[in-house]
């Protein structure tokens, strides 16, 4: 994967659904088209909810991968539509 443009990073580990989605939605609100937000979440429901939210809102889930800092969770990189 090519490294995306500089973007917002949210660490939502420890927060439960629907809080990670709310944080993601708030972070993306007001950002210009095609902006990126990266969110780290460890709620198992986020594995379903973040892709579902992206589909419903027309956003693009660019990538997701396990966190490498030893604290668990998954990184999700979300891009607003053009």
């Amino acid at each position, binding site marked *: 994967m090519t490294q995306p443009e500089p973007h917002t990073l949210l660490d939502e580990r420890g927060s*439960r*659904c*629907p*809080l990670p*989605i*709310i944080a993601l*939605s*708030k972070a993306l609100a007001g950002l210009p088209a095609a902006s990126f937000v990266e969110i780290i979440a460890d*709620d*198992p*429901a986020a*594995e*379903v*909810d973040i*892709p*579902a*939210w992206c*589909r*419903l809102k027309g956003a693009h889930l660019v990538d997701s991968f396990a966190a490498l800092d030893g604290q668990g969770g998954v990184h999700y990189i979300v891009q607003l539509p053009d």
Partner: protein
Amino acid sequence: MFVTRCFWDMTSRAPLGLAAKEALLVALDAGWADPTRLYGEARQSQLLLDAAKESIAASLGVRADEIRFTPSVALARRRAVAGLIPAARQPGPVVTSAVEHSTVLGAVQAFGHPAVAVSVDAYGRVDPDEFLAACRPDTTAACLQIANQEVGTLQPVEAVADGLAKLGVPLMCDASPAAGYVAIPPVWSVLTAASETFGGPSGIGILAVRTGVRWNPSDFADETVSVPLAAAAAIALEESTRQAVQQAVRVSELVDLIRARMAAEIPDCHAVGHPIQRLPHVVTLTCMYVDGETLVRELDRVGFSVASGSACVADDLLPSHVLAAMGALTHGNVRIGLPWSVTLHDVERFMSELPRIVAEARGRLL
């Protein structure tokens, strides 16, 4: 202010209908004895049990000797799986939809038998061609529900039945919560149903096995079931089936109204599940940015009993396998199962409360 309660969780455990309650009281007096004994009281119990089987067989369009009772629908599902797997000629995998009831999937898994789960579309419906493509001549059994228990979507059981018959693969259909609400297509080999979802008592499950199906009967203890509960379940199924003829179109139109008004009047809310190929009385709503448990509590305060499909209430935090398979949001869900007695006035009152409840719940989180 006095508010009429609206019990809108018919797919979980419904209040006992009047006719079923009367049947239960009569059978408590007349059918308490163990029907397997040899004295007069036992024969009377046996008569009531036989009558219950005949009634349920008539409602489902099968023969009375093909009906068995179990102490719960979960047990009926486990016995269906346990009856089919050891009897199969070939050891191939069991093919299921990805959205079968967890007790069906769990029973297959507990048996240690290989299984293939066929994926579903965004409405929770399997594609019949895809389902059949997963089946082979050595497939042990296919499990496809009549309708989904969480979102009410009907599965294409008739469309897969011919293909399965040609392959010689038995079809297990879980009919809860469809039985008593829609006609059950007579294409199954083994059928399970839940008394509590059609106005009957809990504590009794129905298992129907067609004559000629390869079946391992070893795991059967029909005589341990309660005869009064079986008698009440039979009357409840008769009553709900009769009501369906009169009410299904009207209630289905009320579901259409909820779906349409919900999407139009509340931002970031929509119904999940198929808009047309669905049970007449079931709709699941998703509201983004709230948790389903909060919606359930607030709706309860204004007189509506609904279920939460939210993952957040489960102890293990795992999202619903049905919603996950559909790619749907697993939070902010409310499942509604309307009773036949629902009125337009009830629905209008619900729609006058819901936008405020969602807005307030969002206000606390955002």
